[in-house]
């Protein structure tokens, strides 16, 4: 029955749904997982890299992590070609804001701009929605470090920790039990939300759970960290293979000793 209301992006079904938007969200559930975690003094994002062929030339740039401006980076789950368009939009918006106000764009405004652009494709034009979900990680002086998630509908929300892409429900349930925001839960003695090192390990744990097969290895995982340096400038870092290997090892060791 829903078939009749499937094809047009801009038509509601009798149940009040936009099927094309929902199908776009489905498309992302087949894509490589991305997890984002807000840490005490920074943000961690970890992505599953899907290598489709051994013949592929080694990538010079990431297919998951993209820098938007000096203080914001995003990771992508979904159709890379669609993502490129939206990333261009985000970079343009951030740069134009900087030009107009000579100040970095506040994170929520950047996210909202991209999302408004996506929303248009659910309401006008007869074009299909973008098959991309993003995790936006960024810093501004008003609200500090922030993590946002957005999807093809153009909705966005701020998160302490979240997962997009394949098996995101499993990832999210692991985060629910393991991500400690102690200040929010009233046990502030341990110092509140995790530090970067703990967040990195948690991110690897989440990817282990969501990825098929034997899980962790450096060529299947990409780890990204955003922090502030001494001059209050954002530092964006994609970890080297050695650094990733070290963290994977730490997680394995902890898992092994936890069984004792």
């Amino acid at each position, binding site marked *: 029955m829903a078939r009749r209301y499937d094809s047009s992006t801009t038509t509601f079904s009798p149940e009040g749904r936009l099927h094309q938007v929902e199908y776009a969200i489905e498309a992302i559930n087949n894509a490589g997982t991305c997890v984002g975690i807000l840490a005490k003094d920074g943000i961690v994002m970890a992505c599953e890299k899907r290598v489709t062929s051994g013949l592929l030339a080694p990538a010079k740039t990431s297919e998951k992590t993209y820098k938007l401006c000096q203080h914001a980076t995003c990771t992508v789950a979904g159709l890379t070609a669609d993502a490129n368009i939206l990333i261009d939009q985000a970079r343009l918006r951030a740069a134009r804001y900087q*030009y*107009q*106000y*000579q*100040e970095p764009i*506040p994170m*929520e*405004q950047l996210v909202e701009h991209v999302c408004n652009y996506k929303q248009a494709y659910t309401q006008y034009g007869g074009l299909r929605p973008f098959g991309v979900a993003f995790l936006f990680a960024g810093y501004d002086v*008003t609200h500090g470090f922030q993590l946002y998630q957005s999807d093809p509908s153009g909705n966005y929300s701020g998160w302490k920790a979240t997962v997009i892409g394949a098996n995101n429900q499993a990832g999210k349930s692991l985060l629910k039990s393991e991500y400690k925001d102690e200040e929010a839960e009233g046990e502030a003695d341990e110092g509140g939300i995790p530090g970067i090192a703990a967040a990195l390990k948690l991110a690897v744990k989440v990817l282990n759970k969501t990825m098929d097969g034997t899980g962790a290895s450096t060529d299947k995982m990409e780890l990204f960290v955003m922090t502030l340096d001494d001059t209050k400038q954002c530092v964006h870092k994609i970890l080297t293979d050695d650094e990733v290997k070290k963290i994977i090892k730490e997680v394995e060791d902890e898992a092994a000793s936890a069984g004792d």
Partner: protein
Amino acid sequence: MGDSIIGVKFSGGVIIAADQSNARSILVYQSNLDKIPSLTSHSMLGCSGPNADIVNFSEFIAKNLELYRLSNDDMILSPHAQANFARGELAKALRKGPFQVNALLGGYDVKSKEGELYWMDYLGTLQKVNFGAQGYAGYFVLSTMDREWKEGMNEAEALEVVKHGISNLGTRLLLNQPNWLIKVVDEKGVRTIEFGADPADC
């Protein structure tokens, strides 16, 4: 050039003073004009130029800043951002239909808890300054302010510097500018310190 605007930054705020004459050629239309409209709760724009342009430009900037505040969860842009925005609009208009406005933007930055003063002209020049003037006033008061301005002055000391400038203009400037409006912006916001003639009188 007929409008005199004087601005002085002090520790924690900015004072801007402007004459209150609204005149063209030999006719004085009005002698209680407020040439220092507020842009936001914590910034003001002392303007020199034809009355139409002053009102048009200052309201345009003020309303855009208000739209920003409404769209972005009550966020007030810093004086630095406001000044650069205003400068950008002056630059855009320059090669279309210029705003004939020379201004001093005085604001209080809630982040740094400092006053900030910006000098801008109709060509799109922008410069952050400790003290400044627009109109003929500059010819007379920049030298005295250069000598008298000190880092870390308080509001009373800054007011002295401004009043010294006004007094000099009264003696040395050919144009008669009997009424002056003096405003201050600090952490409490924008308020009038004194006026020669009440702008509210019709």
